[in-house]
């Protein structure tokens, strides 16, 4: 203790000598090395433009630990000034808790606003009609398949038209190649993945495509939900997707990094980053010629239609209790600049939400992402509501039960409904 005290006094003396006048400080929370690297130039830009000191605080990388820490701090009123929300499903609840500062006015006045895709603008709007997050990056998930494996086995690689079509294709893969036909993330260990990288995509093409009702409640009794669980059920019961790795820790590692490159899993949902990190040039186990060998399908609707589901990828927000909220909002908008978005795209593999990113020479180098960026215009999305983080966990639990073959589609829906009711109370669910 004495040592700490002495060290403290020493540091005090030192810092008094060095910094006579301290500039205003903005604390930005970031997590994951890639994210921090992507923000480097932005940080310098903010410091230069507004004459402030930016302190980047590295938070732990796993989302769960990040959220635990961030929410504990926000609840105590001691959060960072600017932070990213690891999954868009947390946003509505954080708004309801009063943690996020509204940025609608600033966003509309911003010169980048008109460059945003409409889907990004709409996604950023909260249930109360106000905007609290900067929609800088989009996560776009599709189905990725091994064209080479399917061609060799003589299986059609055409876009499947309906869910039944999709499942038949998976069965055909199973029958002709003996390999797993189609993976949808499922189970508790995948965290938000079950909801965000699979469930949502099917849901938007189902008979009941939305969960949020007009009055901000959740409707979880829709027939579409049962049908979506039915797709999981069919994939699982017919042994079309690998189950065992999904029940273990880090469930994506074996299917995505080992089975898919080895051709033992032939189709899987994945985000745009897969072309770069999972199997592309930044991968430890790359698939040679990935753009040719791996093709994409959009996710078909239950009976018709095609859906490119767009979601906000870790959107940025300002702490409503920031020391200087106005300044923090200005700094926030810098994160929406083209160079920052492109650097995020290069390092993490998400899609810039700005149309004018397409003209950026650095972005054009990311040839894998260019067509996905162009298609983002047609993106559809799930309307957000408070309680989505509970829905996400409920879907994880329901799909876990399906993975363990403990229930059927109706039972899975009941698990979801029960969990959400248990967490949010009966009155939040219709």
């Amino acid at each position, binding site marked *: 203790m004495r*040592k700490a005290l002495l060290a403290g006094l020493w540091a005090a003396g030192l810092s008094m000598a060095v910094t006579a006048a301290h500039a205003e400080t903005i604390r930005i929370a970031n997590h994951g090395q*890639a994210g921090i690297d992507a923000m480097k130039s932005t940080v310098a830009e903010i410091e230069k433009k507004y004459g402030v000191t930016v302190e980047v605080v590295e938070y732990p990388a796993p989302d769960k630990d990040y959220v635990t820490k961030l929410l*504990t701090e926000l609840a105590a009123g001691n959060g960072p000034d600017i932070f990213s929300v690891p999954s868009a499903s947390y946003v509505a609840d954080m708004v309801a808790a009063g943690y996020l500062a509204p940025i609608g006015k600033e966003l509309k006045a911003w010169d980048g606003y008109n460059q945003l895709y409409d889907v990004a603008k709409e996604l950023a709007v909260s249930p109360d009609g106000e905007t609290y997050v900067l929609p800088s990056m989009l996560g776009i998930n599709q189905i990725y398949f091994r064209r080479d494996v399917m061609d060799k086995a003589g299986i059609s690689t055409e876009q499947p038209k309906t869910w039944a079509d999709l499942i038949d294709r998976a069965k055909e893969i199973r029958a002709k190649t003996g390999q797993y036909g189609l993976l949808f993330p499922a189970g508790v260990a995948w965290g938000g993945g079950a909801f965000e990288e699979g469930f949502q995509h099917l849901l938007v093409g189902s008979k009941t495509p939305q969960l949020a009702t007009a009055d901000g409640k959740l409707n979880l009794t829709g027939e579409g939900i049962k049908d979506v669980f039915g797709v999981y059920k069919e994939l699982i019961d017919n042994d079309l997707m690998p189950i065992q790795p999904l029940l273990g820790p880090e469930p994506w590692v074996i299917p995505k990094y080992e089975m898919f490159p080895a051709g033992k899993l032939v189709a899987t949902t994945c985000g745009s980053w897969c072309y770069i990190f999972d199997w592309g040039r930044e991968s430890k186990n790359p698939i040679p010629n990935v753009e040719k060998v791996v093709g994409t399908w959009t996710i078909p609707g239950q009976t018709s239609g095609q859906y490119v589901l767009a979601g906000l990828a870790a959107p940025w927000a300002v702490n409503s209790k920031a020391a200087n909220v106005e300044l923090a909002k200005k700094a926030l908008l810098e994160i929406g600049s083209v160079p920052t978005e492109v650097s995020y795209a290069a390092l993490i593999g998400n899609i810039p939400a700005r149309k004018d990113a397409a003209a950026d020479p650095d972005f054009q180098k990311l040839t894998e992402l260019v067509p996905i960026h162009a298609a983002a215009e047609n993106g559809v999305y799930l309307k957000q509501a408070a309680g989505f983080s509970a829905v996400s966990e409920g879907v994880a639990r329901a799909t876990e039960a399906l993975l363990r073959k403990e229930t059927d589609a109706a039972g899975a829906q009941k698990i979801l409904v029960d969990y959400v009711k248990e967490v949010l109370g009966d009155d939040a669910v219709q």
Partner: protein
Amino acid sequence: MAPHHAHNPSKRRGADLSAYATLSVISIFCAIPFFWVLLASIDGNASLFLQWPRELTIDNYVRIFMQEDGTRWVLNSLFVVGTATLIVMVLAGLGGYALSRTRAWWKRPFLYTILLIRVLPTTALIVPLYKVLLTANNWLGGVLRAIFGNGPAREILKYVGFIDGYLGLILVLATMQLPLALWIMKTFFDTVPRDYEEAALMDGATMLQRIRRVLIPLALPGLGAAGLFAFISAWGDFLLPLILLSSPDLQTLPLGLFRAFLRVNTIDYGFLAALAFVYLLPAVIAFGFARRFLVQTFSGGVKG
């Protein structure tokens, strides 16, 4: 049981053999999980599964200390946990002595309360705890700012702050280890006969004299054991540094471990294993040093 010199030599050899066999099985059970950490840490192509490294490398270790902030993590961890352990030893030495010697009515309720409250996992306490620490921190910050001004106050808070400062983490870590340490020291002092102590002291000795002449020399083995358990437990704690620390300057080893989860989804198992090994080592070394105190302490402790 324990026939140190059994009469029948062949019987003894047989018993010894079965002892060797049993102990070997238990030892293998204890040792096997370590192989993965060891092998993966020197494997250029490590995975989650045990495999003989095809390309031996020390890259993972080099990366920890050259590219990442490994040295800082180790030093921070040693400083924080070391200081906390010292505090525990001092406070548990004094407190354990008091608990052993007092005849007050609150002695037993106090002992049971601090033991039973250990069933509350840190996860159940962390949110209120954070609020306590934040209040203390804001108050201290206010005082420091009034004296030193804004900038210097921030620097000082890094050391004596309760949130995102060394002091807060040290005190909380120490407090979490206190109950067990107090129990160990109390039981230990129970075995030191009062007469001995009374003889060593003339009537009217001050408390300071008692501490210097009786407590410190007698208590060393007990303090060694209590300190060891405190060190190991605080060293392994992950949740408290996770919630209480933010600044890169203050990061400790368990937080560094989570940098192994780099990039989007990939996990660098080689780096992870190497860092796990670095994290493991000080605790193992501590055991090596303090082991001899253990039996000494507890054999005293259970006599009474």
